[in-house]
């Protein structure tokens, strides 16, 4: 968004996540030491995966869907909407996509497109419920999306019973598998490992670019960001904020519809009871860490993906529960949110100082600013 690439500005911007990361490492080490674990061995295991190439592929794959989830969350964030319901939305979408995909026979390619569109539409509608409730009844989207997550879980379980087919070789149940014409083949881009990267990694890249263009280059994106920054100013500028809330929720939901697609079309081919859940919440964390910027979220998604992948051998090699990764992720998030706020305030103050210096103006006095907490005591 910033056109001027001021190195000082970049340095300040990068310092927050780096400091947060170091802080998280330090605190995690304390936790490990307190629990009597081998701190050094734990980090060694995390940082030196045994099969580096395989870990790389898996990291990219995890990063793909985590990134899509973060995008969906970020669309809401840019408008000050806290869409916690990405989790329910992508599962609803992926389920509907799996059912339709397994039921129809279509030419290769078109089959894939149909599944993705079905998933996006269903996810968008599921998110739209929260948007409508907010503008018509004033229900906070935080509350309604949390509830819709729970409803989605039950609804999917109920419907899965109706369409279920046994998954071969297990007592798992799932939807009817999607035939070959509806699958997206993996890519053997990394030599020396049989693991393949999801073909839909390109979908994630395209979605990231679309997100950037939509928000920063279009009138619609301007209205959306203006509403997020100041809904009062947006109203005065002629934005129909209610309509904007519904539209933003629909778009956020449509993006959520993409989250399950790399797994569904590139790996699972059916929606079973083991279909991954909880990616919506990872998306919230990654959107916060990446500060809603496509590049930032991509890096954050890869980091979280890597931590998940690298955690797998921890139990065996270092006798440390893989949940330690959740501690690290949580700490990164906690500290980064604090660090960003500190940096944000510093930046605004620094810019004010710089402008005051460069224009050599009279000092700004505090006329017109609201009462500070201290004044209330008088």
């Amino acid at each position, binding site marked *: 968004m*910033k*056109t*001027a690439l001021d190195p000082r500005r970049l340095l300040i911007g990068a310092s927050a996540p780096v400091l947060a990361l170091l802080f998280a490492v330090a605190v995690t080490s304390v936790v490990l030491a307190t629990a009597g674990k081998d701190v050094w061995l734990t980090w060694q295991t995390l940082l030196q995966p045994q099969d580096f190439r395989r870990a790389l592929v898996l990291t990219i794959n995890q990063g793909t869907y985590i990134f899509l989830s973060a995008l969906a969350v970020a669309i809401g964030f840019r408008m000050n909407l806290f869409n916690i319901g990405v989790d329910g939305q992508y599962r609803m979408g992926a389920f509907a996509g799996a059912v339709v995909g397994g039921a129809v026979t279509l030419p290769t390619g078109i089959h894939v497109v149909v599944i993705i569109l079905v998933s996006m539409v269903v996810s968008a509608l599921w998110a739209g419920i929260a948007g409508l409730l907010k503008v018509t009844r004033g229900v906070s989207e935080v509350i309604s999306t949390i509830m819709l997550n729970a409803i989605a879980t039950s609804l999917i379980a109920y419907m899965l019973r109706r369409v279920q087919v046994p998954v071969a070789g297990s007592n798992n149940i799932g939807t009817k598998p999607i035939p070959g014409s509806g699958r997206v083949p993996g890519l053997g881009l990394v030599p020396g490992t049989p693991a393949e990267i999801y073909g839909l990694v390109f979908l994630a890249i395209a979605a990231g670019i679309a997100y950037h263009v939509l928000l*920063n*280059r*279009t*009138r*619609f*994106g*301007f*209205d959306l*960001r*203006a509403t997020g*920054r*100041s809904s*009062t*100013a947006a*109203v*005065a*500028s*002629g*934005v*129909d904020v209610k309509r904007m809330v519904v539209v933003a929720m629909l778009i956020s939901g449509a993006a959520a519809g993409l989250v399950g697609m790399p797994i569904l079309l590139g790996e699972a081919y059916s929606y079973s009871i083991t279909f991954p859940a909880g990616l919506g919440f990872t998306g919230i964390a990654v959107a916060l860490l990446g500060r809603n910027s496509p590049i930032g979220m991509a890096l954050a998604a890869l980091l979280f993906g890597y931590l998940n992948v690298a955690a797998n051998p921890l139990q065996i090699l270092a006798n440390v529960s893989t949940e330690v990764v959740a501690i690290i992720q949580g700490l990164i998030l906690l500290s980064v949110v604090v660090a960003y706020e500190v940096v944000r305030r510093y930046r*605004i103050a620094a*810019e*004010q*100082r*710089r*402008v*005051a*210096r*460069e*224009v050599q*103006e*009279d*000092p*700004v*006095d*505090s*006329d*017109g600013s*609201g*009462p*500070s907490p*201290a*004044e*209330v*005591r*008088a």
Partner: protein
Amino acid sequence: MVANRDVNIVIRRGQVHAIVGENGAGKSTLMNTLYGMHRADEGTILVEGAPMTFQSPADAIAAGIGMVHQHFMLADNLTVLENVVLGAEKLHGIGDGARRKIMEISGSYGLDIEPDVLVEDLGVGDRQRVEILKVLYRGARILILDEPTAVLVPQEVDELFDNLRELKAEGLTVIFISHKLDEVLAVADEITVIRRGTTVATVHPKDVTAPQLAELMVGSELPTPETRESTVTDQVVLQVDGLTLSAPVPRGARPVDEGREPTTRRLLDDVSFTIHRGEVLGLAGVEGNGQAELVEAVMGMRPGARGSVELDGADISDWTTRRRREAGIAYVPEDRHRQGLLLEAPLWENRVLGHQTERPNVKGPWIDRAGARADSERIVRDYDVRTPGIDVLASALSGGNQQKFIVGREMSGKPKVLIAAHPTRGVDVGAQAAIWDHIRAARRNGLGVLLISADLDELIGLSDSIRAILRGRLVGEFDPAEVTPEQLGSAMTGAADRAEA
């Protein structure tokens, strides 16, 4: 940033000491330092000869310094007594002891306060006296009054000055901050002038005239908003008829036993007016009498408004805010931080705000960055916005420069009507003159203006005709060539009605 430097003031006991300076000269910063809200980097504060360091307002209060803020801090739904004892319960309790003390203070300084009245039933002048009483109740011997007359009409100002003289007679010290020179000359025993954060002179009111004081303040002559040659045409550009807006009265806002329980309250009551091409219609009124609602109703931001609004002959009553803006209504909002700017967006994005559908900001559905940036540069140049560039955040600019940018933006694209609410509030003298010039120039070219201002001189100077608004109704029509601030003040407060009661 250095907001104050080398400030030297000696204030004698039992005096009213005025501190004058332009907006942004550092008056408030100085007072906040005296009141312990922030600490000075250098220098000392002596109270009765003893050096003081204030960590917080509590320290200042303990040293006998009290502050009456420009914006009142009273809870409307509590009584005067409850407001006064709030946070000072330990002094005289919350019952009869406190009531006695309040009556005693009120009596000895002529404040005329009834302790058991609800604050929401009080007028602005009464509320201010409650604020003064709050400070005295906490034992202050030195009172700081931050622009106390900004919210008062002329009659109330006179009453306030009588109160200040009483306080002085009882040996209290008053520090009176203002930028209204006639008031300062009327009430002060000594005047200190602040310019660019530092004290430039301390004078006696009998030794100086208002123009001399003004020169000390700004270092040059004061501009006036005079515009006498009329440019009013007979073409109607904005016609408002019977505009009415009701709001429900919140339950519990009034005591039940009072007998009057209206479920709705009229924020705007049958407001009608006409603005012609080239005409500035001034609207005088005490804040909170429906000005904000009127402006928002005309802008299409109040869904419940009834009545009709016509722009250039077209009925726009059902139009959205965006369509009204596209049709040529420009809007300088009262609260620039809430409605006029995206503070955390760069300046050039603020050029787009409110004009998201107009060239040069957009091309079809796309934001035209180059166009918006170039036009932002033009506004910065033409409106003398002091900024190092158009990529700085809007929040980094001083209030006056933010306002100049907003006025420049709203004047872009040849608007037919400008709705300007307090266009020069919080703006320094130079910028004020520039904004007036721009409004005058646009008026010559046929712009119709609805001007809302608390500054009666500005209203009288700029307007072609003036209406007063009181409790949502237009109550009088005045010719700015003849009207005095006192007459306007009476109309704004309904003084005529009150005299009968």
